């Protein structure tokens, strides 16, 4: 029998996520046979721009690599410059960095939970979770002045202190999340529909996760206990108890499917709350930044020579920055790597053998910082006819599948 496959390109633009990305699928009936990834539609040449700017200017550029990870990139970048130039961050500065980074994780994971609900056609979950996310965004605005792009990081420390009066407000938010967590867990982990759509879907085996160098919750859900905060604790994480979370803590088994990725992210919400509480209890007093005068700092960096790496466990996984200073105004090299870069290849084994209707949730399950699925062109090779599936149509397919398999 002639086994005819169809090719379906998905992407490159999707209005609800941040970055565009194209997927090309070979489909046999409903089943995905081959996956080709074609990112790069949103390459803005940020590293190239950075190589013409001084390190302090790059912080603001790094902050804008991603709107959601706007604490993670400057965190890693500042560490890389500090390592290259031999700058020590004051202890209080290290604690404030961690608090901001963990608040970012809370908002990022809840944002993801909402998107996952939406992709399954469970829109009330989207509204409930994004309502819950507002609380942490308000807190971030209260602490830093901005809901995103916090502008807190500076080479050698942070730009804003957390005062005694602000601490009760932080505790109030943490209490709010402790209350609301039970509800979120109930919706995601005990709902039969979500379990039906996510269990044994988009499986990434432990072996594949290792071979393809996956990072963050994507690799932890496959049973690899890998977390930079645990393996190579930097900043205040060195004082705190952080353990990589794998799904067996909750369910007793590791399948590496979409459901396991949900478990890991939800448990990390609780972990973030605990980390912030530990930080508030043990926060040392003192300076928040090594050098307050920016002109002096720039001069110091201009004379510095050396190379350094900065790693930070962002909500999506390890962020990696490499900086080489060579006694010049601008760094000789700045290399930035976001977690989705490493989580690109694991998509292929996850998507193979799944159905078209599973594409949205499987793609969303790695929490990509890349967007897609705006429009789909189905090209019928036999007659050359093109059918365009919009984002709406694809979403509709996903919703229909949820309805179809729900008893």
């Amino acid at each position: 029998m002639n086994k005819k496959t169809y090719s379906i390109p998905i992407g490159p633009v999707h209005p609800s996520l941040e970055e565009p990305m194209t997927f090309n699928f070979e489909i046999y009936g409903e089943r995905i046979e081959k996956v080709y990834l074609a990112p790069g539609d949103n390459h803005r040449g940020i590293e190239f721009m950075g190589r013409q700017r001084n390190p302090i200017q790059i912080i603001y550029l790094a902050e804008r690599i991603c709107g959601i990870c706007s604490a993670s990139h400057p965190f890693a970048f500042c560490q890389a410059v500090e390592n290259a130039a031999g700058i020590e961050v004051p202890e209080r500065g290290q604690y404030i960095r961690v608090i901001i980074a963990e608040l970012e994780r809370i908002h990022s994971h809840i944002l993801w939970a909402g998107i996952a609900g939406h992709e399954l056609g469970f829109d009330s979950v989207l509204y409930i979770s994004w309502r819950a996310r507002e609380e942490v965004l308000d807190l971030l605005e209260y602490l830093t002045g901005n809901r995103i792009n916090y502008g807190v990081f500076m080479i050698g420390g942070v730009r804003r202190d957390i005062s005694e009066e602000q601490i009760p407000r932080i505790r109030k938010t943490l209490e709010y999340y402790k209350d609301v967590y039970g509800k979120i867990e109930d919706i995601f982990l005990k709902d039969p529909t979500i379990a039906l759509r996510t269990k044994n879907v988009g499986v990434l085996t432990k072996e594949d996760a290792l071979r393809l160098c996956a990072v963050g919750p994507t690799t932890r859900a496959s049973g690899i206990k890998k977390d930079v905060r645990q393996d190579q604790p930097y900043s205040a994480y060195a004082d705190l108890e952080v353990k990589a979370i794998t799904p067996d803590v909750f369910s007793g088994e590791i399948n590496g499917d979409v459901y396991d990725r949900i478990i890991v992210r939800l448990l990390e919400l609780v972990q973030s709350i605990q980390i912030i509480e530990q930080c508030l209890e043990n926060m040392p007093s003192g300076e928040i930044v090594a050098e307050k005068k920016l002109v002096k700092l720039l001069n110091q960096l201009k004379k510095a020579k050396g190379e350094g790496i900065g790693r930070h466990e962002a909500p999506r996984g390890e962020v990696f920055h490499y900086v080489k200073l060579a006694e010049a105004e601008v760094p000789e090299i700045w290399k930035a790597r976001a977690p989705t870069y490493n989580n690109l290849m694991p998509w292929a084994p996850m998507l193979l053998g799944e159905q078209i209707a599973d594409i949205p949730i499987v793609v969303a399950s790695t929490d990509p910082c890349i967007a897609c699925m705006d429009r789909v062109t189905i090209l019928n090779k036999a007659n050359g006819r093109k059918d365009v599936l919009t984002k709406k149509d694809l979403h509709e397919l996903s919703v229909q599948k949820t309805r179809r398999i729900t008893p």
Partner: protein
Amino acid sequence: MEYMKPEEIIELFKEKFNESITNSRIEIKTAGSKKNSYSLIWLEIELKVFKEAVKLLCTIQFPHFAIISDNDTGEEVKLTYHFSLYYGERFKEISLNITTNLPKNNLKMPTITDLIPGAQTSEREMKEMMGITFENLPDLPNVFLPIDFSKDVFPFRKDEKGVYPLSKNGKHIGGNIIDNEEEVKKVE
């Protein structure tokens, strides 16, 4: 499991490759108020033993590969492969950065995707951005640059094949595109 110390790892490499290891150093970093520490290893090795070195690395533990960073120094292209070893336990992870130099007239590198498949994206990035040929890497379309992007321009290069022209001492001239020689002289 058995964890090797950073010194032992360097010793292992030196034992096998002798003079091909041109440079090695260990960096110790501390963090937090308890000043706990972790280590980084920087190795510089000759191109001819590079693949063997990655093979040796894979025998210690399957390493996590982060990215390749590039540096066009004029005569040569420096590639640094960033790995990390040992995960799963606090303070045990060691970052390992292996640098190798490629002469400009022969930008060929052995692929490591047969050992670490996850390195493919990064190798393809280097191919597009630096014009490096990876031997035995399947010829796949561009990842980051548009498919119809010129095959003679490599954005991360700092020589005549880069995006902007260079000054005499091989440095970029700001972020502006300068097309004629007179203006280049004016800037200098």
